[in-house]
């Protein structure tokens, strides 16, 4: 009876009900899309950022992140790597050496003499070509020339090494593929390190700051140059899914305990990036709150009008012995019927909207810039959150917003309302 009454009451003022349904459905749709779009953006930005550079998890010698010293190394990195390979959630890992050096380009036509024209200080990253390629698709970002190769010649100190320059760095040095340069640095054993390199490629990572001061040599070259045989500074771990990162970080950390190593997730080593994401998430919450608030006002207005219009009816119900609780339940149920219809309608159109956004994405103008990495198009992802969060919002809104008017209706004074003037 309660349900029958509520259901029919919902549809007696058709136009107003439709308006209310549109408001609630619209609120559902907008929140659902915002969530889907934000979720999609987050995971694609995070995956992009971490897959192209940092990995989702990194292993270092303890304290390296705070004080990245050349001496702070992972000494038995092959063993650590073997352990990582044994963990199912780990897709690949890549070892790296970090140091700094002065690069000086040999002037063309200088014959065999060492005449240098341009020079620049740069970060040197030693990478294992094959592993780095598997981890970060390194060669995809090479805009000129080729990827480094790990040939036997690398191991000979006298031989000329290979180097890849960041695009901006190559412009500063006025050097291009095929040119030679000299790298001057200091090795971990205190000896001076210097060696000739031929430029094999130019890379553009999308982050100009990085490309202005970074060059890449092979891991074995770096180990020789910096006297770090068998050692690395960092192991970047690529996981299979973003959702599992926190758990995996814990697992790896536990597995490597007792080795003076530390394991961190992107949330720690890319903390600024992570904070940027969190700020956006807060913004999303504010957005949803505003959507819910606007929708709630609309619904409140309808329910207040409805209660006012039906005062006489509530008076009759009270007169013939209906308890106040029955009237409260009836009105809250009416609001929730509208809520449920809106959730169903909203889910359908949101699915359509999310499917569209997950295929086409939205072009960002101006583009989003996260830690120097620029995103031009954002794609939505369809997650359970896109449905349950708006649904809970709609139902909670319908219940809260109808409760006070319902109480008011339930305490209608029968004698007063029934008086025919």
């Amino acid at each position: 009876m309660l349900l029958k009454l509520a259901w029919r009451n919902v549809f007696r003022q058709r136009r107003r009900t439709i308006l209310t349904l549109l408001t609630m459905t619209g609120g559902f749709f907008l929140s659902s899309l915002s969530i889907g779009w934000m979720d999609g953006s987050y995971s694609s930005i995070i995956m992009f950022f971490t897959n192209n550079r940092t990995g989702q998890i990194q292993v270092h010698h303890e304290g390296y992140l705070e004080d990245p010293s050349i001496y702070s190394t992972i000494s038995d990195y092959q063993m650590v790597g073997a352990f990582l390979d044994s963990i199912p959630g780990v897709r690949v890992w890549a070892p790296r050496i970090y140091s700094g050096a002065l690069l000086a380009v040999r002037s063309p036509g200088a014959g065999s003499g060492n005449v240098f024209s341009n020079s620049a200080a740069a970060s040197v990253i030693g990478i294992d070509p094959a592993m780095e390629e598997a981890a970060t698709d390194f060669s995809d970002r090479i805009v000129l020339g080729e990827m480094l190769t790990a040939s036997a010649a690398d191991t000979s100190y006298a031989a000329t090494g290979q180097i890849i320059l960041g695009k901006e760095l190559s412009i500063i040095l006025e050097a291009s593929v095929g040119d030679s340069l000299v790298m001057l640095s200091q090795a971990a054993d205190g000896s001076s390190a210097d060696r000739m390199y031929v430029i094999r490629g130019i890379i553009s990572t999308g982050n100009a700051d990085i490309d202005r001061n970074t060059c890449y040599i092979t891991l074995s070259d770096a180990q020789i140059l910096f006297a770090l045989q068998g050692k690395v500074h960092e192991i970047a771990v690529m996981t299979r899914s973003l959702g599992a990162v926190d758990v995996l970080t814990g697992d790896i950390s536990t597995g490597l305990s007792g080795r003076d190593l530390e394991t961190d997730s992107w949330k720690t080593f890319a903390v600024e990036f992570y904070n940027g994401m969190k700020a956006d998430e807060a913004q999303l919450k504010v957005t949803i709150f505003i959507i819910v608030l606007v929708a709630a006002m609309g619904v409140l207005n309808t329910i207040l009008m409805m209660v006012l219009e039906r005062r006489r009816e509530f008076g009759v119900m009270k007169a013939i012995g209906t308890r106040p609780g029955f009237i409260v339940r009836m009105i809250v149920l009416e609001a929730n019927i509208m809520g449920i219809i809106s959730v169903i309608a909203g889910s359908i159109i949101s699915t359509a909207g999310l499917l569209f956004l997950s295929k086409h994405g939205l072009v960002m103008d101006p583009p989003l810039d996260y830690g120097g990495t620029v995103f031009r198009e954002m794609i939505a992802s369809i997650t359970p959150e896109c449905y349950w969060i708006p649904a809970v919002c709609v139902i909670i809104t319908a219940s809260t917003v109808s409760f006070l008017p319902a109480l008011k209706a339930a305490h209608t004074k029968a004698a007063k309302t029934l008086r025919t003037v």
Partner: protein
Amino acid sequence: MTDNDVIVAEGIVKTYDDSGVPVHAVRGIDYTLEKGEFTAIIGPSGSGKTTFLNVLAGLDTLTEGKVWLSGKLISDMSGKELSDFRRDHIGFIFQAYNLFPVLTVEENVEYVMLLQGVPPIERHDRVMNILEKVGIAEYANRLPMQLSGGQQQRVAVARAMVSRPSLVIADEPTANLDSNTSGSLLDMMRRLNEDTGMTFLFSTHDEIVMRRARKIVVIRDGKIDGKPSSEEIQ
């Protein structure tokens, strides 16, 4: 007070005071209504008929005095007790019919029994039985909107009686009806009163209605006019 008294009212006073200026609508009435009566309360507009019925039925609070309904002192009951008491002991018929517009005739009549928790089969039988009696059975599945005023008021009579209350109260039940319809509605109510022994108390200022009452009580300026307070006419 005897078992035969449906209403006993003692020294009832109702003063409205919402606007700051006190309005003395009922100024001290003692009244007894016996089982099986079919009594009209008459009096000019503003004389206090509605107020009198409302306080007797526990729809409005008393300023002074006591009211017993079927032997129960209702003037002391809490809101919820009073609400349940009205549900089980009083049937209401209103001037403006006041059927629930979203419920069919059958559902309107069934409503109070639902509140009382009468089982479905019994509900259905009692609804159809009373609808037969008021001559509306063929319209059981219609909405109130689809009926004439007289037909709606017959449904209202059915709704008031179906829960088998001790008393049916009707405040100007014919005020919205033409004289023919008023006459036949009252004839029907009177017949139900005679057949079932149900007690009726209604207000009116309609000649047609007065003529069909078995007893008349005159109210003037919030007081019962003349002694004895009620006058036998038939």
